[in-house]
C-alpha cells in the first residue's frame, strides 16, 4: 500500500466513524472512551506497527506515523498505542499465549483498569529488594500463586482490575534473580486498597495490602524468576513519559500557560523590571525551553536512525525545571506565598508546585537513581559495587 492510499484509507475511516468523545475521562480505571477505542482496535489503527494477526497492520514506523498524524489531526485518541500503551506492550511481549489473546484486546480498548504494584515501603530506589512473596500453590491443590505483601505509590488501585506486580518467587538466589512478574487480579478478598495522603494534601496514590491473594498460573508474565527483565522494559516507558510532561498549576490561575507563565506572573507582581528577578525568570524559562529543544532533537535524531543519548535526560531536566519554577514563583509572590486557600490562587499554585515537584524528582526513580542510569547506560561509567548483589536474598540485611 502506498503512503497516499494509506492516508486516504485512515482519513476515510475517521470521517465515517469519528464523532467525538464523552466529556470526561480518567487515565486509570475503566476508560469511558472504551467504545471508541474498541472500534479503533478492531480497525487495526490502535497498534499499526504490530502484525496483522496481533491486532495490528504490520506497518513500518513511517507509515504508522501517517496513521497517528491522521488521528491527531481530528483529535481522535487511540492510535499509536504500540508506542504509548505500557500495559498492552508489556502483555504483548511477555504474556503466555492464551492470556495474551484475552487481555491485550481489552487493554487496547481501555476496558480493564490497571495499576502498578512495584514499590514497597522497604524497596524504593532499591526496587529489587522487594519482600512481597508469591508462593506456588501445588497443582494437586488447583495450582496458581498465593501473594502476600505490601505495595505503595500505586495510582488508580481503587478502580483497577489488574495490577502489574513484582513479587519474590525464590529467596535463595541473589535479589535480581528471584523476582517474577504477574498480572494480579485486584477485585478479590486479600487485596485491600488505602489512599495515601501526600505532602500536597491530595491522595493520588494508594497503599495496597495483599494478604494471601490469588493469581492464576497463566497470569505470570515472562519466565519464572525472570521478572526483573520484564520490569526493565516497563520502567523505561514510564520514565520517558515523565520527561515529556508534568502537571502545571492546580488552580489554572496565575497568568498565561506554558513557557511564559512565569513572565506573566512577574508582570502581574510588578517585578518584571527588577534586574535580579529578570535573571531568575529568564533562567527558569530557558531550562524549560532547552528541555523542549532537547526532546525535539532526540526525536529528530531517532527518526534519522541515529541513537540519541538525550531521551534519558528529560526526566532529570524536568525535575530541575519544576523545582526552580516553583522557587521563582515563590520569589515573585513574596509574603503572599505564606497564604493558602481558594482566595489565594497564586499562592496555592506556588506552594503546590513547590511540593509537587518531588513527584518528578522522586517518582519513577529518584534524580539520584536517574543520574546513576545516565552515568552507567549512557556514559558507560562502571557500576557502584553492591554488597548484596551476589548474596542469596534470604541473607540480605533489610530495614
Amino acid at each position, binding site marked *: 500500500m502506498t503512503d497516499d492510499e494509506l492516508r486516504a484509507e485512515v482519513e476515510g475511516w475517521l470521517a465515517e466513524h469519528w464523532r467525538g468523545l464523552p466529556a470526561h475521562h480518567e487515565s486509570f480505571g475503566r476508560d469511558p472512551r472504551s467504545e471508541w477505542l474498541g472500534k479503533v482496535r478492531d480497525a487495526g489503527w490502535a497498534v499499526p506497527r504490530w502484525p496483522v494477526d496481533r491486532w495490528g497492520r504490520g506497518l513500518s514506523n513511517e507509515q504508522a506515523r501517517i496513521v497517528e498524524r491522521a488521528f491527531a489531526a481530528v483529535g481522535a485518541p487511540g492510535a499509536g498505542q504500540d508506542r504509548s500503551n505500557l500495559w498492552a506492550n508489556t502483555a504483548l511481549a511477555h504474556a503466555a499465549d492464551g492470556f495474551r489473546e484475552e487481555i491485550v484486546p481489552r487493554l487496547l480498548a481501555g476496558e480493564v483498569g490497571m495499576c502498578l504494584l512495584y514499590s514497597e515501603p522497604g524497596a524504593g530506589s532499591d526496587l529489587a529488594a522487594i519482600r512481597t512473596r508469591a508462593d506456588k500453590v501445588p497443582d494437586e491443590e488447583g495450582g496458581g500463586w498465593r501473594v502476600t505483601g505490601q505495595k505503595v505509590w500505586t495510582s488508580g488501585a481503587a478502580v483497577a482490575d489488574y495490577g502489574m506486580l513484582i513479587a519474590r518467587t525464590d529467596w535463595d538466589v541473589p535479589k535480581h534473580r528471584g523476582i517474577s512478574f504477574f498480572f494480579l487480579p485486584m477485585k478479590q478478598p486479600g487485596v485491600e486498597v488505602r489512599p495515601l495522603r501526600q505532602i500536597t494534601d491530595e491522595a493520588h496514590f494508594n497503599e495496597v495490602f495483599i494478604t494471601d491473594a490469588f493469581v492464576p498460573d497463566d497470569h505470570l508474565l515472562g519466565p519464572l524468576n525472570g521478572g526483573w527483565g520484564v520490569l526493565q522494559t516497563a520502567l523505561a516507558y514510564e520514565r520517558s513519559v515523565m520527561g515529556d510532561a508534568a502537571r502545571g498549576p492546580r488552580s489554572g490561575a496565575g497568568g*498565561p500557560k506554558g*513557557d*511564559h507563565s512565569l*513572565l*506573566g506572573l512577574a508582570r502581574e507582581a510588578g517585578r*518584571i523590571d527588577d*534586574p535580579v528577578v*529578570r*535573571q531568575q*525568570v*529568564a*533562567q527558569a*524559562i*530557558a531550562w524549560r*525551553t*532547552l*528541555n523542549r*529543544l*532537547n526532546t*525535539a*532533537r532526540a526525536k529528530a535524531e531517532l527518526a*534519522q536512525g541515529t541513537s540519541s*543519548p*538525550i531521551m534519558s*535526560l528529560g526526566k*532529570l*531536566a524536568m525535575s530541575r525545571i519544576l523545582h526552580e519554577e516553583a522557587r521563582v514563583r515563590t520569589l515573585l509572590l513574596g509574603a503572599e506565598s505564606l497564604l493558602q486557600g481558594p482566595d489565594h490562587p497564586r499562592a496555592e499554585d506556588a506552594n503546590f508546585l513547590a511540593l509537587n515537584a518531588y513527584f518528578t524528582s522522586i517518582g519513577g526513580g529518584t534524580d*539520584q537513581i*536517574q*543520574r*546513576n542510569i*545516565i*552515568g*552507567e547506560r*549512557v*556514559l*558507560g*561509567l*562502571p*557500576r*557502584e*559495587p553492591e554488597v548484596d548483589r551476589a548474596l542469596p536474598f534470604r541473607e540480605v540485611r533489610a530495614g
Partner: protein
Amino acid sequence: MTDTLLRPVPPATLTHDERSALVDSVRRLLADRCTEGDVRRIIDSDSGHDRALWRALADLGIAGLTVPEAHGGAGLAATELELVMEEAGAVLLPAPLISGAIAAALVPDLDGLAAGERIAAVAFTGRHGWAPGDTVAVAGGRITGTARFVADAAIADTILIAGDDGVFAIEAADARITPLPVFDRTRRMADVAIDAPARQVADAAAVAPARDIGVVALAGEQAGGARRMLEMTVAYARERHQFGRAIGSFQAIKHMAADLLLESESATSAARDAAQQVAERSASADAAVALAAFACADAFVRVAKDGIQMHGGIAFTWDHPAHLYLRRARSGAQLFGDSDGWRDRYLTALEAQA
C-alpha cells in the same frame, strides 16, 4: 560593494547526508592538522595563527563557508556554520573563523575573504558593542577612536567597524593595533586605534544580523568544546582507579557526569536551534540567539570547570589540556557580552513575543 539586504541567492542548507560529509571532512582535517600538539604550538607563537592550517581550511571551503557563491564562497547557511564550529570548538581550533563569518555577513563581497587570502576582524561598537572602553566615533568624514578587545585584529588585513552609523572598513595597515595579553591564547585580541577616512561598506541594518551569526558560530564552538571536554572527562573517569575502583563508579563523580551531559546536550540543542532560526530568519530568532548565547557559554564554563575537578590533580597541570578548554570557555563567555546581559535580552525578546 553590494548591500547585504540585496543578496541575490539565499544561503543554502544541506541535506542530512551532505552535512555529515561536510562535518566529516572538517573533522578529518582537524584530526590531522589541529592536534593538541598543534594547538600548543600555535598558542605559543607570537601571532597565534598558523598560516598553513588556515590555507588548508580555506582549500576545504571553510574560510568562505558563508560567503555567497557569487563571491567565491560556499554560500552555506548559519546551520552549516554552526556544525563546523562544533568541530572547531572540540579541538580548540585557533583560527579566525568567527570573525570571518561575521565579516561575510556584513560585507559578502569582501575582497579575498572567501579564498582565505585576506583575514577580516570585526569591532562592534555602539548599540552592539560589548567591550568596555570603546571610543570609536564617526564625524566629518573620518572615523576615529579606539575599538577594544577586537578578536583576530593583529592578524587581520581588513578591520570592519560595525556600529550605529553603519559599517566602515579600514586597512589594518592604517590602524595602530596593540595586541592584548589574553588569558585564552587560542583567541587573540587587540586594541585598535583608528584615525582614518570613514569608508562605509554596509548599512547599520547589517550589524545586528551579522552579530547574530557571530553568536551562533560562538555557540557552536562552545557546544563542541563542552562535548569534547565531557568526553575526555568521562574517558578518564573510566580508566583512573582509586580505592581499587574506577573513579567513575563513585556516585560523587558519576552524578556530576550526568549533570554535565545535560548541560552539554542542552548547549548543542540551543546552538543548533539558534542556527536554524537565524537561517530561516524566524520571528523568534532574537530569543533563540540570546538563549544560545548564555546557555552555551554557561554550559561550556561549567563542563570545563567541573571536568577539571573530576579529573583531580592531573588536570591541575599545565601539560594536561583541560585548562586550555577552561580558558577557551572563559573567553567565549565574555565575547559579544556576558551571560547576564544575554539572559536579560532573552527575557526582553520573550516579552516582545508575548
